[in-house]
């Protein structure tokens, strides 16, 4: 295997957890063996594997944030986004690949939250890899039944007149939430607006940051 440049920092600059000095486990042994067998059998190459790691590293919530910020400033783009999330993302140069993206909008009377109760389906091509909590038993179990209690654990409180709309990602669609644009942000640039859009606000377990806070 040629020298793999992933040993210290990912291309996106995130440090990998140092596992070079941890005892080799059965499953790590399997990963090495499977990878080498697939290379030996010409299913893939070390370069292709490295490139795929880079590609996944390049996917992060910043992509989703840029799409949301555009939706905030451009109402016609927002309508296109709500109609076809994949096509609208592509307009901005973000190719979400084979993923079918549905964008849903938070309003004064509706708060959206996304879960996959059956496994951990997540719009990874838009937001990067999912957080550990999204894959947890507690989140998968409780979000469809007591979303408001779950939201309060994330620090989000909703009014009684706000409806919670829970999306269970059970099949081929993936979901991104367009959070409410914070007040008093009229003067901000699109890039500044994007910096207010957190990953959790695009899953529905958070709201966009208030720039005055």
């Amino acid at each position, binding site marked *: 295997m040629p020298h793999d440049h992933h040993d210290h920092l990912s291309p996106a600059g995130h440090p990998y957890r140092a596992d070079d000095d941890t005892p080799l486990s059965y499953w790590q042994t399997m990963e090495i063996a499977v990878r080498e067998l697939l290379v030996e059998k010409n299913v893939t190459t070390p370069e292709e594997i490295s490139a795929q790691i880079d590609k996944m590293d390049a996917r992060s919530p910043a992509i989703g944030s840029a799409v949301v910020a555009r939706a905030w400033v451009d109402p016609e783009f927002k309508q296109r986004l709500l109609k076809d999330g994949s096509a609208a993302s592509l307009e901005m140069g973000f190719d979400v690949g084979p993923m079918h993206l549905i964008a849903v909008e938070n309003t004064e009377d509706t708060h959206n939250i996304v879960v996959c109760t059956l496994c951990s389906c997540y719009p990874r091509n838009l937001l990067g890899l999912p957080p550990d909590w999204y894959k947890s038993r507690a989140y998968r179990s409780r979000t469809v039944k007591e979303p408001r209690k779950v939201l309060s654990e994330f620090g989000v409180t909703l009014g009684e*007149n706000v409806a919670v*709309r829970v999306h*269970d990602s059970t099949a081929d669609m993936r979901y991104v939430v367009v959070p409410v644009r914070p007040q008093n942000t009229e003067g901000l640039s699109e890039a500044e607006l994007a910096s207010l859009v957190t990953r959790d606000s695009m899953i529905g377990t958070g709201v966009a940051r208030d720039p005055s806070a």
Partner: protein
Amino acid sequence: MGKQALGNDPFAAGATVRIRHLMPPGHVRAPAYIRGKRGTVERVIAPFKNPEQLAYGLPATEQMLYRIRFSATELWGDLAENPRDFIEAEVYAHWIEPQDHSHAT
């Protein structure tokens, strides 16, 4: 794919439907908490290959995929946090029956 007039297609957007209350073993994508429950078609999506066949490496036929909306009270009764709340899930056609043709479970 496409919407048809509500009177012609029991599974058009807006139609009231019930999820079949079957409990097979194996890889199915209709979660247990919606089975036997009543909902409305939020939208007709498109045909997709049946995951119940793909999961076993079998040739897969396409099934229309729908988003079905359930009220929190329909699913959880008195345990629903707020009667305004609702839950939407994607369900394949073979798990859905028209409301009129179902028997109560």
